[in-house]
């Protein structure tokens, strides 16, 4: 992740005690007691303990943890559906805990949309009216909110269902309505509490893909909760791992997988850890197109365009890997009137053999993120591995 990204939300030392006397519980916490002891001594539950992290503008941050780890509590603290006991939460430069009731309503309207595990659609409202809800609350004119809500429904693929009632829809469709309600609202942050957990696996996968597409289109700051590692790896830019109300690790999917902070994380990714026996071959895809080193630059460019890629591996007759040609370089070659591309190749890419452990591949994806070339002993090109495929492969291993 780029260090210069703007911070959207700062969570600073947040604790939440469910009970009448949070101070006493926090004091015990400071003496080093854990959740069960505090519960026994004070009858209060330490829901969250000293949580700190940032959410960057436009990122999709996943909060992951087992049941009871405090995920729902944490996400509800962000928009103050739950009041925190200690710490501070800052969005842009508003301090959420110190907002007045009126300011809080204003802040929720401007900043937060929310999607719920059990959908929480209004049964007495049509799909369209549900999608309009946030706008209605904000007092947007009927014509405008109608238009915006219809667009949102189109985005989630629900045209034609505007006048249906939620109980006429399948679970997957209901959650699309929930998503449309959130998107139509156009708040600056999207909060999703186990939004896909109630859906069956196929629909769930589909919704994940859709969310990713929406995300790449809209770059909306999203906090997504799940207890499912597969889901977290699949969609998260970064993952915050919670355990018993505490943060155990924050990092990219790769960091979590390759450098688990402790045994808890390790156990969490245990299934996935079979990646040690997974190799580059399992994630390898056939090369869609290559160029020969004798090809002219126009031919190479044409192939790139045909396959919508912006770089291409170059081999000789016997598929021995010669180098990589970037589209820019190819254009330069055309401008220079070069006959062949052989002088314009770069060696700035990574090659692995087919039995390289999959885990090691993460580190190899450089900023430009060329596909990694998989070659045999004689440097013949066998296939390529793209970043997404590695995660997919690992996640699938985690499933088994």
């Amino acid at each position, binding site marked *: 992740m780029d260090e210069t990204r703007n911070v959207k939300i700062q969570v600073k030392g947040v604790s939440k005690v469910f009970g009448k006397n949070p101070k006493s519980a926090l004091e015990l916490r400071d003496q080093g007691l854990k959740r069960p002891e505090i519960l026994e001594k004070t009858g209060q539950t330490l829901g969250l303990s000293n949580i700190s992290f940032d959410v960057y503008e436009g990122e999709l941050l996943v909060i992951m943890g087992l049941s009871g780890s405090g995920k729902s509590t944490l996400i509800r603290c962000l928009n103050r*559906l739950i009041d925190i006991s200690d710490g501070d939460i800052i969005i842009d430069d508003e301090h959420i805990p110190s907002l007045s009731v009126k300011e809080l*309503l204003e802040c929720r309207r401007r900043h937060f949309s929310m999607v719920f595990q059990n959908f929480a659609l209004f049964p007495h409202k049509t799909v369209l009216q549900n999608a309009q809800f946030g706008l209605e609350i*904000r007092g947007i004119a009927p014509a405008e909110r109608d238009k915006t809500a219809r667009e949102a429904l189109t985005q989630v693929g629900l045209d034609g269902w505007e006048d249906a009632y939620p109980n006429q829809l399948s679970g997957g469709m209901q959650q699309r309505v929930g998503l449309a309600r959130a998107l139509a609202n156009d708040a600056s942050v999207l909060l999703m509490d186990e939004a896909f957990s109630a859906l069956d696996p196929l629909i769930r996968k589909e919704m994940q893909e859709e969310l990713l597409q929406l995300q790449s289109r809209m770059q909306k700051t999203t906090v997504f909760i799940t207890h499912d590692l597969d889901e977290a790896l699949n969609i998260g830019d970064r993952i915050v791992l919670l355990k018993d109300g505490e943060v155990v690790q924050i990092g990219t999917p790769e960091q979590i997988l390759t450098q688990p902070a402790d045994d808890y994380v390790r156990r969490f990714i245990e299934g996935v850890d079979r990646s040690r026996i997974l190799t580059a071959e399992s994630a390898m895809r056939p090369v869609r197109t290559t160029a020969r080193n004798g090809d002219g630059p126009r031919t190479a460019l044409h192939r790139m365009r045909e396959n919508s890629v912006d770089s291409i591996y170059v081999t000789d007759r016997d598929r021995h890997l010669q180098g990589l040609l970037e589209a820019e370089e190819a254009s330069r070659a055309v401008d220079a009137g070069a006959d062949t591309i052989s002088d314009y190749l770069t060696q700035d890419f990574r090659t692995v053999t087919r039995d390289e452990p999959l885990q090691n591949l993460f580190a190899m994806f450089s900023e430009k993120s060329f596909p990694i070339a998989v070659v045999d002993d004689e440097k013949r090109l066998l296939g390529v591995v793209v970043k997404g495929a590695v995660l997919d492969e690992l996640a699938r291993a985690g499933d088994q």
Partner: protein
Amino acid sequence: MEIQSIPLGDWIEGGLTWLTTEYSVVTRAISRVTQTGIEGLNAGLMWLPVWGLLALVALLCWKAASPRLAIGAAAGMALIWNLGLWDPMIETLTLVVIATLVAVVIAIPVGILAALSNRLYRVIMPVLDFMQTMPAFVYLIPAIPFFGIGSVSAIFATVIFSMPPAIRFTTLGIRQVPVELIEAADAYGANRRQKLIKVQLPLSLPTVMAGINQTIMLALSMVVIAAMIGADGLGSEVWRAIQRLRPGDGFEAGIAVVILAMILDRLTQSLTKSRR
């Protein structure tokens, strides 16, 4: 040794006397308004020809419920007319309608407040229990010093007697709205008024309607009893039959009450169901 009985009755009487003298201006104003309302509605319903009202009710039943109810209602009302009880039936209906309107207008806001405030809830629920377990006749007694003998007293007693279910069901309906939906409304920044109007009230409507249905039924039973303090209508037909020892007349009037009750009940029930 003799135990002195507590002069509870004296206290209550004293209180009532004080109230009636102190607030006679208010009671007289209420009396006048209510009387005007009763007379107006009564005159309106009487002005309609028998077949006109009959057709109107049948149409309403048809639209709101079923052709079956429409036919039944028409037949029942024709029977009442045939028995010569049309005018008393109209008088009873008038009292029921006005008492229900007043009761509902008071009950729904009170029910909403009790649903939203735990403290009020704790105060109101025992009061409702008290109101509902107190024998119905007892309300007739204080009505007289306030409003004298007649229809206004009947309305007063009926409103008090029939209000509790409307309050209770309104409170229940609002409290039953799933917390997730309240949370969703909160999450999108709804204020209390928006939450109430856009979420809580629409979702509690069926329950509220069930309460209103009960209120109507109680109002009907009380209006009949209120014949004892001079309310006109089917009740006074029964009352007269008792005094003259004519059971046949009494039963005829009783059957008219049953028919009216069934029409009102089915009609309000189907109004509840036809809403989503």
